[in-house]
């Protein structure tokens, strides 16, 4: 194997971006390995989209080093662009053309495109292939966006909030598509503010808040690392509900058993879900 096998598909060090007085990205580091699905998770305004746009080569940066497939996106050549697929946050396909015309036309831009009919099938738009884009529903347009993102058979696919506005069934369908592309070896970076999406798809994820990475790792490892503290809840004889946060919930329950001499009224032991961990990390705990 050549040296490229170990090279990161995306390598970001100390990325910074200012909009006037507002610091949107405040020193982000990311390392995405070839072939993995990486989730960038965070609330709206955390700096996810800005980061992805810089990786696409569509936004300038104010500081830091960025390498995407071995090149700096700021100076990306046509050959580099042909290897990076982009699914935008807002759709923008030509309304008067049909799905098939659009996908076929975009295929012409690339040196080694996928078969347009196969791609239309992949995103589940066979039945709409002959329809004008203006006649598609929102979810169908998003699927067309994905088709245009993968038509060039990219090595790296950048998806910015791809399932925003999807109904649950469409979201599941979309997840299957991402898994399929991943199984084919495409490296995928997706931003999302849906925790369950990151958990379902990502091999690894980074949680971003206020322009910084606050946690990074495999979803299960994140839960373990940040979620050891459990909450014990019970009802006192006077009817007041009490809670206690502890790293040793069993000991707390044992003490309560002694006090109540048997059954503990209203007992609940709650382990934090990944969502709790996420909300705590992004400083949104109060939002619950």
């Amino acid at each position, binding site marked *: 194997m050549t040296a490229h*096998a170990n090279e990161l598909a995306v390598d970001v060090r100390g990325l910074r971006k200012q909009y006037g007085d507002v610091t949107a990205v405040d020193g982000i580091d990311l390392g995405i390995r070839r072939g993995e699905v990486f989730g960038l998770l965070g609330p709206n305004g955390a700096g996810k989209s800005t980061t992805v746009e810089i990786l696409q080569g569509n936004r300038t940066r104010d500081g830091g080093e960025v390498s995407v497939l071995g090149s700096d996106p700021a100076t990306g050549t046509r050959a580099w662009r042909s290897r990076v697929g982009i699914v935008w946050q807002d759709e923008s396909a030509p309304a008067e053309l049909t799905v098939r015309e659009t996908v076929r036309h975009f295929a012409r831009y690339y040196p080694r495109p996928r078969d347009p009919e196969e791609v239309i099938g992949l995103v589940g738009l066979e039945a709409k292939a002959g329809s004008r884009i203006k006649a598609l529903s929102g979810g169908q347009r998003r699927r067309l966006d994905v088709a245009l993102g993968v038509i060039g058979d990219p090595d790296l696919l950048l998806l910015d909030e791809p399932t925003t506005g999807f109904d649950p069934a469409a979201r599941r369908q979309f997840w299957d598509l991402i898994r399929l592309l991943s199984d084919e070896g495409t490296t995928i970076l997706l931003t999302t503010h849906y925790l369950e999406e990151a958990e379902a798809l990502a091999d690894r994820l980074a949680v971003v808040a206020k322009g910084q990475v606050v946690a990074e790792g495999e979803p299960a490892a994140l839960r373990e690392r940040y979620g050891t503290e459990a909450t014990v809840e019970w009802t006192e004889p006077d009817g007041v509900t009490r809670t206690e946060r502890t790293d040793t919930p069993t000991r707390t329950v044992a003490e309560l058993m002694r006090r109540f001499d048997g059954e503990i009224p209203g007992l609940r032991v709650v382990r934090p879900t990944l969502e709790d961990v996420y909300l705590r990390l992004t400083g949104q705990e109060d939002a619950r």
Partner: protein
Amino acid sequence: MTTTAVRAGAEAPAQRLPGAWGLGLRRGALEIKQFFRQRDQVVFTFAFPVVFLFLFASIFHDDVHGSGVTASQLYVPAMMASGIMSTSFQSLGISIAVERDEKVLRRLRGTPMPPSAYFLGKIWLVLFTGVVETAILLLVGTTLYGVDLPSDASRWFDFAWIFVLGLTGCALLGIAISSVPKSAKSASSVVVLPFLVLQFISGVYISIDTIPDWMLNVGALFPLKWLCQGLRGVFLPDSARVLEQAGSWEFGKVALVLAAWCVGGLVLCLLTFRWKTRRDG
């Protein structure tokens, strides 16, 4: 994930990227297809100068003193010039601003499409609609308003270069002005006002022998005045030269100014063209 499933990526052999000319042709075909699918746009684009020709040439039809032509005849080349500018300057100025606002341009920029293919596609669209528009006006002018087609080949040749240079210059100006409006909503106002003013001071609506000299001199800085003058030279008898500011058609100067606008317009486009709106950074 096993390493075998990971793509070779950087080791993939360098494949040839599709060429700009071929893609430009394909984009042109696609642009024309999209244009004709918006039926209301088609009807109004082509009808606008025809309706104005009909109005002006029917209201003003007297002989113009000592020129050997009628006012109606004067309006035929004038409306042709206006039609060429509306299919190029106005339609590109507005449509590109809308495409930028709707992020169509940004999406194209995210593909390996060469930027020149986009501009070539626009030029094919403008050439196509410009030829159709001019042909319609010529048909109306010759059948209803007594304009004769040029009889000698050299006048047809003049017509050809005036058309191509005028259309190209106006198209490039249209691409340049598309960067001015902040959003799609303001695009038509931003583009239509200067076009309307130019039509008044370049001899489209009002005969040039009635326009104050200083206004004509301002108009002379832009291509429309020269486009009008060149087309009058092609379609009117030489006796009408007395109406001109210089007393002649000045074909040499027409060529010079229009060519200068092609070069200047290109430079302006290269310096100012943006793929994103200002708020997209």
